[in-house]
């Protein structure tokens, strides 16, 4: 991963490394550049557990969708990423947290094509399909938490 591409340095939190120690990190999500950073950190974490190209692309795409939702619908927030489990059972876990307006009807929000923001309405439902584990907690006025996980089937 070659991350540096005109990314403005914004003080301390930006000094992350994209390498193997991507685990256990908290990434704030307040700008479009932060969404890119989420993708990079997710890519590094999938590399750490030895995921295949397809497994990585799926997970990183889901991360991108969820980070964008955090930014656009949740008014900003953060992503926590960790590698949990041992040996071949290791998985990458990502949790997206915001204190935004919350989702009144989760079932509807998870329907393909449903969007309140003029999007395609594929982000949330797509992320669910792309990850092996998907959990969402949200209520009006209480913000939104989405937790996803994936692992590799490679021997």
């Amino acid at each position: 991963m070659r991350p540096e591409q005109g990314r403005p340095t914004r003080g301390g939190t930006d000094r992350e490394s994209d390498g193997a120690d991507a685990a256990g990190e908290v990434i704030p999500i307040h700008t479009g550049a932060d969404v890119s950073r989420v993708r990079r950190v997710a890519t590094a974490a999938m590399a750490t557990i030895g995921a295949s190209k397809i497994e990585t692309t799926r997970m990183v795409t889901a991360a991108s969708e969820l980070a964008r939702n955090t930014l656009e619908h949740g008014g900003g927030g953060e992503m926590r990423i960790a590698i949990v489990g041992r040996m071949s059972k290791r998985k990458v876990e990502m949790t997206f947290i915001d204190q935004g307006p919350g989702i009144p009807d989760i079932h509807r929000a998870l329907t393909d094509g449903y969007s309140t923001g003029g999007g395609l309405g594929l982000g949330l439902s797509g992320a669910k399909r792309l990850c092996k584990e998907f959990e969402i907690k949200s209520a009006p006025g209480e913000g939104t938490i989405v937790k996803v996980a994936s692992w590799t089937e490679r021997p």
Partner: protein
Amino acid sequence: MTHYLEPSRIPIFQIGDCLLLTIQVDLEDRMIMTLKDDLAERIAKSHAKGVLIDISALDVVDSFIGRMLANISAIARILDASTVIVGMRPAVAITLVELGMSLQGVRTALDVDRGMELIRRDTSEEAGRLHEA
């Protein structure tokens, strides 16, 4: 601030009546918005007939970038240029399908050469039709 030194702009090259742009890096949202504007202007100025967008270096195309690619090709169409997205990787293609994005109306080709072929075929067919009329 000079344009050509700004790293967050994607350069657009002209080959004959085609515009070629190669997306080399993880796209930040801002960059692709700028690209949309730049490209529309270039098409209008150059009277280009085709736009080739090479995404073979892209590891991830999410629904936002997917939508932007579709937008770009719609805008180009109105400006009378056809867009071909070239070089999409297998993992990206599978993921887009899984997301539910079929990029309807966007044309695709395996690489820049094939994309160029496609555009040439279009323009010569069009010329043929004009000739018949």
